[in-house]
């Protein structure tokens, strides 16, 4: 079983007791549509935090706010004690990396070039490319297992390889905090596990703080050290998966009746949806939610 939250290993915590990335009473909205109101979240330093919840619960929106893509309508997001919007863009980019859901590989770009672009926040007009950049790019490609693809075109790669390349680009940014928005979407099961293993490695071996939005509750329970369960823009529960994932919680968050058993491989909670007959006359929304969680 994985260690719980607040493991003080790896990177040094700049100010003890206060986590580096927090949201205080944020109201998140797109135009007039309010997704979450007065939401407060702390990302424990050195954790692998995973945000879960049904579709449209605001998990990606929360991640966008934490990564300053979305300006809160009210409240504030703090990075190292400063309001994230007020910080110089490149300074944020050296501290906090993001792997967004949508990214475009430019036509005819090679893997090496794409990963190299992750060095942008460390460069300036006068300092465009250094031996250090080269070293970090090689290292990032080696860590994600794409070093041998360096000269290949990104368009030619498979979905799983491409996701590794984008992760390598985010790694080349060398940020202690890394946010990933549904990094396993559109991947086969073996590539999903592959990407999650890579994330766990980055967290455990390099002490990076990871925050990911995941669809699959079982993946979340297996890999997260800290789980945040969100529904309708509200945090229903947070903590170590082993402490909070219960049949009751899954029913409250996803509207799905289920059993929670021990994962025979890792001992983490494993959610087994109740058989169709057992759920039988369940309410319609529960059934809709059940089909989407997978």
């Amino acid at each position, binding site marked *: 079983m994985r260690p719980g939250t607040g493991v003080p290993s790896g990177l040094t915590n700049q100010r003890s007791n206060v986590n580096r990335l927090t949201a205080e009473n944020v109201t998140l909205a797109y135009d007039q549509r309010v997704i979450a109101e007065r939401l407060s979240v702390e990302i424990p330093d050195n954790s692998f935090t995973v945000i879960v919840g049904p579709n449209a619960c605001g998990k990606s929106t929360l991640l966008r706010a934490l990564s300053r893509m979305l300006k809160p309508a009210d409240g504030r997001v703090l990075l190292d004690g400063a309001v994230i919007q007020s910080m110089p863009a490149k300074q944020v980019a050296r501290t906090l990396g*993001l792997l967004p859901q949508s*990214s475009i590989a430019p036509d005819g770009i090679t893997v090496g070039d794409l990963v190299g672009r992750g060095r942008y926040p460390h460069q300036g007009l006068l300092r465009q490319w250094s031996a250090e950049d080269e070293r970090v790019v090689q290292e990032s490609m080696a860590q994600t297992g794409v070093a041998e693809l360096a000269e290949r075109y990104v368009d030619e790669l498979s979905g799983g390889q491409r996701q590794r390349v984008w992760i390598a680009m985010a790694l080349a940014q060398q940020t202690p905090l890394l946010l990933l928005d549904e990094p396993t979407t559109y991947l086969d099961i073996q590539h999903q596990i592959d990407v999650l293993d890579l994330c766990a490695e980055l967290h455990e071996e390099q002490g990076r703080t990871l925050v990911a939005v995941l669809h699959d509750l079982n993946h979340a329970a297996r890999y997260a050290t800290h789980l945040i369960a969100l529904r309708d823009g509200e945090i229903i529960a947070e903590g170590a998966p082993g402490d909070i994932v219960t049949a009751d919680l899954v029913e409250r968050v996803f509207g799905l009746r289920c059993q929670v058993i021990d994962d025979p491989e890792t001992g983490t909670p494993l959610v087994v949806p109740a058989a169709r007959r057992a759920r039988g006359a369940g309410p319609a929304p529960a059934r809709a939610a059940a089909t989407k969680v997978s």
Partner: protein
Amino acid sequence: MRGPGGLSFRLDVRAVVVVALLLVVALAASVLLIGTGDFDIPAADVLRTLFGGGNAGQEFIVNELRLPRVLVGLLVGAALGVGGALFQAISRNPLGSPDVLGLGQGATAGALTMIVLFSGSSAQVTFGALAGGLITGTAIYLLAWKRGVHGYRLVLVGIGVSAIVTAVNGYLLTRADIVDASRAVVWMTGSLNGRDWDQVWPLLALCAVLVPLVLGNGRALRMMEMGDDVSYALGVRVERVRALLMVAAVLLTAAATAAAGPVSFVALTAPQLARRLTRSPGPNLLPSLCMGAALLVGADWVSQRAFGADQLPVGVVTGVVGGVYLLWLLVTERKAGRI
């Protein structure tokens, strides 16, 4: 394999060679163009005259008549090349170039208003074209704006605006008498005939300010190719860079159009050709600039050679070349399954 200098070094070599070659081509075409006309001057004499060693007759023809025309050609080509590269990079679409977006039509509307309604002087026509281009550019930007400008919306809005302005232009032309109408049609084709130093200086000043500004933001623009989210994550202030570069691109395109008329397809083709030569992703701003200059002056030389001095406006040649290129682009993109 990558050399010790790293990957940016390797890419730069090819781009630098391309830029150098295009500059040589542009300058060579310029010298040939200066030597071409009713009174042909050999290239060697042109060079000698340019460096102050010619006889009085040659000096007048070269420095007063033909040099400013060629300089306008170089500057217009450069401005259209870099303006096109900016638009295409911002819209992430090769069709997002000023020709398609209706900036040329907007400038034409301004110029036609001056010619047809006010029978304006050439300075007033230039001013009208500039104003028309700027107004159209602003309108497109405002209409396409919705939490950031997105490629397809920009292209579609541009096409819509272009259609409206084209209709206005048609109306203005039907209102014109025969003298104004023929003047308008010549202007609308895009021509370098009769350009003098008065057109060179403002264009040169504008390029001297905007081109360094644009090149300074080239790296941020390169990041923006990967989508707004990724570039935000990398620390690019996406909206600010985009607004700044749009303004620069509209100014460059409008000024070029005001100076030489809506020379068609240079802004569309120059960045694409440059990109195929450098074989590198990214906006390829400097190669596009040089390609634009080389294309325009080269096309002008071809039209002068083939059809005689001042017979065929340069816009006809760039239109034919650009049209053929556009078809080829559509066919190859289709084969590659992108459209």
